[in-house]
């Protein structure tokens, strides 16, 4: 942990120094009436290409280009640095032209989604570790189905003929919908277990009306409810950690296209020399 904080501080220090160097360079460049927009724009374009190349790095993992973790650290570092350069390039002002406004918004969405992803990558793993079993995201429907089958077995197949319909009724009334798919996603995001408590209260309320065997089965069902709820918890957070990329990655492609077009137009229209 100590090593982590030292590393963070060094990274922050390096980031600050590089940012200040870029700001100072552009300021000094502007004094000589040189085109600082082209300088900052070129740096920004290089940053965007580097950031986008992280996706490429994942695809060509067989090449010895460094560890994915190192790439991720650089990706985050350059991402923050790109914001400094972007702020410099756009002078912290919202542009007026349509194309530039779209480019501006695209960058900000990509950047903010990156920040969001960075925040998720810092928080969700801890939350995932805190509850339930870590399972592969793609296997969650299968596990959910298995739990559901187990519950149905406990209620219907293991029931004795003399036992009443209390458990099946309880299942149809309160459990069937719960086990059929991912539920209470908002509550999980908000770290709330209120729904689980309510369900457990209902179970507790039912328990006095059951015989001993039914109570054992109800206890097993309660375990499956906890398992299913943990699975839902895993599902929603793993989904979030995967779905934010649906904003970040596609818009990165748009950003590259817009950036290249903007660079071409700027060079042709805004007079690079002189």
């Amino acid at each position, binding site marked *: 942990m100590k090593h982590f904080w030292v590393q963070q501080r060094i990274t922050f220090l390096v980031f600050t120094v590089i940012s200040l160097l870029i700001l100072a*360079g552009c*300021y*000094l*460049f*502007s*004094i*000589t*009436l*040189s085109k600082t927009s082209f300088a900052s724009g070129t740096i920004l374009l290089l940053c965007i290409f580097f950031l986008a190349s992280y996706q490429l790095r994942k695809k060509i993992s067989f090449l010895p280009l460094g560890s994915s973790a190192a790439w991720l650290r650089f990706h985050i570092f350059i991402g923050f640095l790109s914001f400094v350069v972007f702020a410099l390039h756009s002078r912290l002002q919202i*542009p*007026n*032209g*349509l*194309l*530039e406004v*779209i480019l501006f918004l*695209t960058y900000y969405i990509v950047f903010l989604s990156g920040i969001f992803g960075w925040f998720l990558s810092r928080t969700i793993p801890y939350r995932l570790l805190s509850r339930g*079993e870590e*399972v*592969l*995201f*793609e*296997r969650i*429907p*299968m*596990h*959910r*189905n*298995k739990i559901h089958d187990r519950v149905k077995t406990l209620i219907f197949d293991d029931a004795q003929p003399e036992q009443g319909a209390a458990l099946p009724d309880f299942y149809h009334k309160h459990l069937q919908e719960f086990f059929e798919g991912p539920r209470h996603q908002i509550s999980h995001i908000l770290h709330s277990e209120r729904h689980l408590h309510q369900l457990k209260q209902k179970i507790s309320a039912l328990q006095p009306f059951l015989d001993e065997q039914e109570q054992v089965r109800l206890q097993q069902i309660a*375990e*499956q409810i*906890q*398992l299913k709820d943990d*699975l839902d918890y895993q599902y929603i957070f793993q989904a979030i950690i*995967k779905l934010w*990329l*649906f904003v970040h*990655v*596609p*818009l*990165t*492609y*748009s950003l*590259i*296209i*817009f950036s290249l*077009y903007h660079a*071409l*137009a700027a*060079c*042709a*229209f*805004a*007079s*690079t*020399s*002189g």
Partner: protein
Amino acid sequence: MTEPLQPFDWKNSNYERPANTWVCGRLCEEGLPCRLGPSNKGECQLQSQCEPAEKGGKYQCTRSVLNGGKCKEGPAPDGTCCQPDTSCQPRRSLLARRRFLGGLAAFIAASFCLIVFSGDSPSSLLSPGEVSQSHANIESSCSACHTAAEGGLDTWIHLTMNGDVALDDSARCLKCHTELGEKALFAHSVSIERLHKITSQIQAKKESASAPIALQLASLTGHPATNGKLACSTCHQEHHGRKTNLTQLTDLQCQSCHTSPFLSFQHGHPALGDYPYQRRSRIYFDHNAHMSRYFKNGDFKRTMPKGHKPESCNSCHTPDATGRLMLTAGFEKTCASCHEPQIEDVDFPGVPFFALPVIAPTLMKSQGVWPNTEGSFATARLPRLMELLLEHDSDYQRAIKQLGEIDYRNLNNFDPEKAAAVAEIAWAIKRLLYDISTSGEAALTARLGKNSALYLHLKPSIVPTLSQAQQIWFPNLATEIKYHSEKKAIPDSTQQKPVSAGFSARNANSGWSISDSDFTIRYRPIGHADPLIKGWLDQAVQENQQSLDRDSMWRIFSNPTASGTEDSHGALASGRCLMCHSVDKDPVSGRSHINWQPLPTQQSKAEQFTQFSHAPHLSSGQKLNCESCHVFDPLGTDSTTILQSDYFVRDQSNLFWQINQNSQQACTSGFQPISRQNCSTCHNAATATQSCLQCHNYHAHRQLTSSK
């Protein structure tokens, strides 16, 4: 404690390949994936993997271990698979969906860019923002400013690699901004040679000053080429909204090109030198002499009893509409009460342009009318203009050749043979008068030949006065000319006496006068801004010295004899007009012009590096008055000193005036130079009003808006 959800051995793990494009539909819908998963094309592979084979009349399951191994039930008796149809509709994996979304986003972005480009030329959607207010009317026309707007995408790509595109675009700026001159793209709009010269002059006066640290560091990052051309966009950044100030630059940016940078106006700025007096005023006016001597109560009442004494500076100077300049009230309001009589010069009869020589009446018997001019002619020669008009009269030329040295003051003592020649002179003068009376300006044009262009534009014309003189002196001239041309004797009836001597007519509006006392036609200035003198001087200062020496009109006006007084300050015009009106010579073209107005009324070709606005300094809150900055110099030069370096000097003969080629063009206004310290009491870091652009123009040849 519940048992773990997932086993990790491959035999017990179902199909999960999330990196593939397709995933099993059953996994997604029911959580019951098959082991195989879909094919790369997104097809379910489950069915095709189970094909029972017949062995010894029985069908056996042939499913491989990889696909789950042989099923317990085995094939049906008819050889069909016992498994129900478990085929599903595979779905795209998350990765594939994200990849698809990425492609879609890129496609939409590219489509948008192409729409913005819209064919052969870019649409207004490409505009990065509104242009400034001054360019708003051309905003819709990209090609008005951009070369790239005239071509397609290929042109754009070509231009990105063209280093001169900025200068090409700048050339479009100059189509409208013609006021910046021909060298607008050079630093400060002056030529490289001129820039080097100015730099050398400044370096010679360089004071030790430390450059700001930022400027020293900035010099390490590179520098725009100051020896070459600078694109307009180097300083003027457009498309930042209507309210953008296109000329705003920081002091460091201004100084980044300069060879002698300094910290600020307050610290390190070079001394102002003689500014603003190093460029003498367009109108010579010695404030010190006037305010300290002429406008003193006692002297003023004695020397100029009818003159008007100004009460304060505001009596003569008021700010213009822009507040930048202090206008000078006109001559009539400020100077006329004292100086009008000097200009009109009532004691001076005027410059003679036409005169009848003294010819004895006995010589003119039977030759028609000839007034009795005896004792009236003042000079030995005819006026120069008259000589010019008679230059191509062959009879006249033959006569003066025959007479030899002649004195026009006395043409009466000749023998009969020469008397005929004298008569020819008289007839030549009569023909001249007749021609001008009947043909007017055309006669002048014909007689002056190539010289006519020089004189005919001078107004008022002499023609009406000559015609009037003909009516007075030779009332029957037409008849006389007719008889003379037919070589007939002139009848006595035509020889009527002209108007008696002593008549004098002067047209107060034209300046021309006919004097019957000496039979001359003279010109005397009608007052301030006399048109003929003004026109002649404008012409004279533009001539070179050699051609001016040969110029007859110049000799007329520059001859002190012609002016009537040997001790006058100068020739008629130069002595009067150029005592107050200065002459400027363009350093580039070498052409001179007289400053008739106190402020420039035409495009100034002189370098204007500095500007100053009076109104803000005189506003009530500033507690300043004129004397706060303009302090009289008790050692200031007087008008005599000024004239010693005036534009005109006498030649070696001391008879004529010539243009002073080495004129210092110096004129003090009688004030001490304004010191930088005086300005910096207000313009300092505390008030944050010491920007370079407050006082300095970048475009030194920019046309200034004059205020009348």
